[in-house]
């Protein structure tokens, strides 16, 4: 009996059963893979690759080193504290002449300007005269602009010349990488990103909380009302979902602005005098109100689908066992909706944390979120590297929270429907 246990089982055609099974399973896996491969390729080409490329900009910046190869070479050996020598100045002039010819001096100047603000014109104006300069270049440059004698300018260039840099991440976290590679905190007045990140998290948490508070009763009603009524209610919940975000956000502007519907009503009711209308919009409050409204369906739908699956007999059983309505709800019903709360909360939170258009339109100054800054650096300041660094920081924060959530609640506890 025991040796039949150990001997490999043979299939009908004489091959070992294990091998046959593996072959059969491989076919199945191959089929499955072929079915998903178009989507996989699409995602790879249009989603993962661009994102990866973009995120790599957060730590990879070869603009200075490619445009100013001679300067970069000499700066690589420079310790960052001693006086730059004639060799440095000569390399700089060669590069300035070249970049002026290829019209890339503007980019280079902008790049160095990020390290040392105010240094932009130094580069552009010097580059114009560089072609006519003659050795010794050190004197010639300092004669043109005496700033060239400043060591800070050279330190800024050394920082800019690093191809792989943690400078942008440092910046995204309100720090600064010095020429010698050390990282220090930014001066007080330039620390904005961490504050912004905290505000973004705070707004997202608040929006999630308000969505839960508002969405839970609605979802409960939807799940318990008779079908005809609940379908109508469901349409009301979904109607905003089908409307463009832009329309909804501008509708909120009409509602909330100081000459808007809500304020008019307040004035009419005498809640506030005409000259002291509430500022409900173009601030954090506006962002909170509009985002809560827009993200509400993301909370209601998972909650609803979970609640719909809870048979009424549970609450009945609880009551028959002597529980009051409140106890039955709190100890029997609510715990069973936790998967829905988890799914809804994580959906709302993740959508909220990267929310952009609504804060941009109704957020004013203190209602801006980090994605608005990312957008600013993408389109206005054209500092894509910093945008990438900010984006990566945001991504890491989300992943960390997700991990914490998994630890505390458990992802498999989540139910999307």
């Amino acid at each position, binding site marked *: 009996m025991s040796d039949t246990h150990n001997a490999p089982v043979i299939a009908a055609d004489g091959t070992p059963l294990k091998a046959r099974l593996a072959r059969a399973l491989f076919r199945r896996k191959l089929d499955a893979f072929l079915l998903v491969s178009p989507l996989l390729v699409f995602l790879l080409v249009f989603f993962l690759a661009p994102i990866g490329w973009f995120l790599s900009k957060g730590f990879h910046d070869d603009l200075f080193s490619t445009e100013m190869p001679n300067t970069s070479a000499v700066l690589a050996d420079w310790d960052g504290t001693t006086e730059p020598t004639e060799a440095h100045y000569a390399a700089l002039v060669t590069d300035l002449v070249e970049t002026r010819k290829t019209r890339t001096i503007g980019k280079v100047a902008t790049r160095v300007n990020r390290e040392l603000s105010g240094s932009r014109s130094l580069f552009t104006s010097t580059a114009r005269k560089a072609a006519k300069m003659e050795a010794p270049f050190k004197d010639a440059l300092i004669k043109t602009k005496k700033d060239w004698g400043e060591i800070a300018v050279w330190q800024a260039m050394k920082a800019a010349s690093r191809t792989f840099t943690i400078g942008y991440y440092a910046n995204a976290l309100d720090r600064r990488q010095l020429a010698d590679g050390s990282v220090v905190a930014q001066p007080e007045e330039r620390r904005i990103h961490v504050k912004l990140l905290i505000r973004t998290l705070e707004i997202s948490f608040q929006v999630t909380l308000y969505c839960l508070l508002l969405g839970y009763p609605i979802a409960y009603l939807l799940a318990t009302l008779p079908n005809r009524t609940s379908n109508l209610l469901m349409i009301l919940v979904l109607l905003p979902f089908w409307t463009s975000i832009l329309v909804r956000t501008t509708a909120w502007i009409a509602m909330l602005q100081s000459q808007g519907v809500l304020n008019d009503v307040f004035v009419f009711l005498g809640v506030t005098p005409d000259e002291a209308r509430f500022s409900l919009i173009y601030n954090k409050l506006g962002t909170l109100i509009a985002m809560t409204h827009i993200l509400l369906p993301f909370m209601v739908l998972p909650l609803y689908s979970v609640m719909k699956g809870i048979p009424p007999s549970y609450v009945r059983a609880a*009551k028959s*066992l*002597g529980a009051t309505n409140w106890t039955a709800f709190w100890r029997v019903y609510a715990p069973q909706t936790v998967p829905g709360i988890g799914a809804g909360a994580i959906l709302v939170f993740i959508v909220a944390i990267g929310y952009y258009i609504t804060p941009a339109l109704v957020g004013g100054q203190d209602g801006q979120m980090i994605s608005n800054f990312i957008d600013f650096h993408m389109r206005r300041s054209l500092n894509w590297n910093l945008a990438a660094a900010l984006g990566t920081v945001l991504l890491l924060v989300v992943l960390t929270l997700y991990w914490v959530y998994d630890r505390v609640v458990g992802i498999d506890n989540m139910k999307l429907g």
Partner: protein
Amino acid sequence: MTSGPNVDAFVEFERVQKSYDGESLVVKDLNLSIGKGEFLTMLGPSGSGKTTCLMMLAGFETATHGEIRLNGRGINNIPPHKRGIGMVFQNYALFPHMSVNENLAFPLQVRGLSKSETESKVKRALDMVQMGAFGNRRPAQLSGGQQQRIAVARALVFDPELVLMDEPLGALDKQLREQMQYEIKHIHENLGVTVVYVTHDQSEALTMSDRIAVFNDGVIQQLADPETLYERPDNSFCAQFIGENNKLGGKVIAIDGDTATVEFDDGATCKALACNCEGVGERSLLSIRPERVKIESSQTPDSVSARVLELIYLGDHIRCRMDVHGHNGFIVKVPNSAGHAQMNVGETVNLTWEREDCRALDVI
């Protein structure tokens, strides 16, 4: 059926009506009194209003009209959680997020019992259903039969005087169902609680009940102990719903005392016990249990002739399908005893039965 307040009734329905939509009555004029410690089964086809009655008793539905009393006290306005009625649901309704122990402790905790008292009661209840070793499992980790036991234990753990069970065994396979029937019955006998049990399985009702209320269309058709219900059904619905039954349609041509003479459509006549027939000239359905029919070799004055259509050998008995005066679904069970009558398909035989076993009932 009794009506009006009954002194020793524990649960009483008095003229209870229920309508969900305001148009049709799901329960029509229900009068029912249940004694203390009784095991009463509500039996009836799907949609006959059994669950509705149970829900009204438990307090999850309100009676549209009439009064329900528990222990002499009207409970129409008492919320479910104050009624102190244990309940076993068809899908068990064990709380999925709590362990078995927590499920059982729940009714005790909401009643504010001390921790030690709770623990000992939970343990006792689990032992009662032989599930002592499963206290730490989640309901999802139990088999259907085990969940069922836990549901029963939970309904009993807080010592209610009345327990309602709505088709508690509906989801179990036949063998387990039969085993659980005995177990529930024994628990009932040991604890002396009053049980109102709902099922649409008639053999379950016969096995377990002290009395059975047969429901149809929102009306109790008959309320009686199992034996009476089987032996002496009040009407054709009960006769056909409970057990196997032969029905023969005919017209009453004479009633003499409690004996009715019924004429079949082909002109043959037969005598029956007049139970629930309208009177001379009206149609009636005769009801005879298959095992009460005897096959005689020779013709007698009371015998009825029949032609054998089909013979099915079933081991302990032989099932014969016969044609009796134009009714070709007439079944006779012939015990497979030594020297039982030999029959062949197509043969004509003579059937006899005791007059009391052939009941002339209403036509449905």
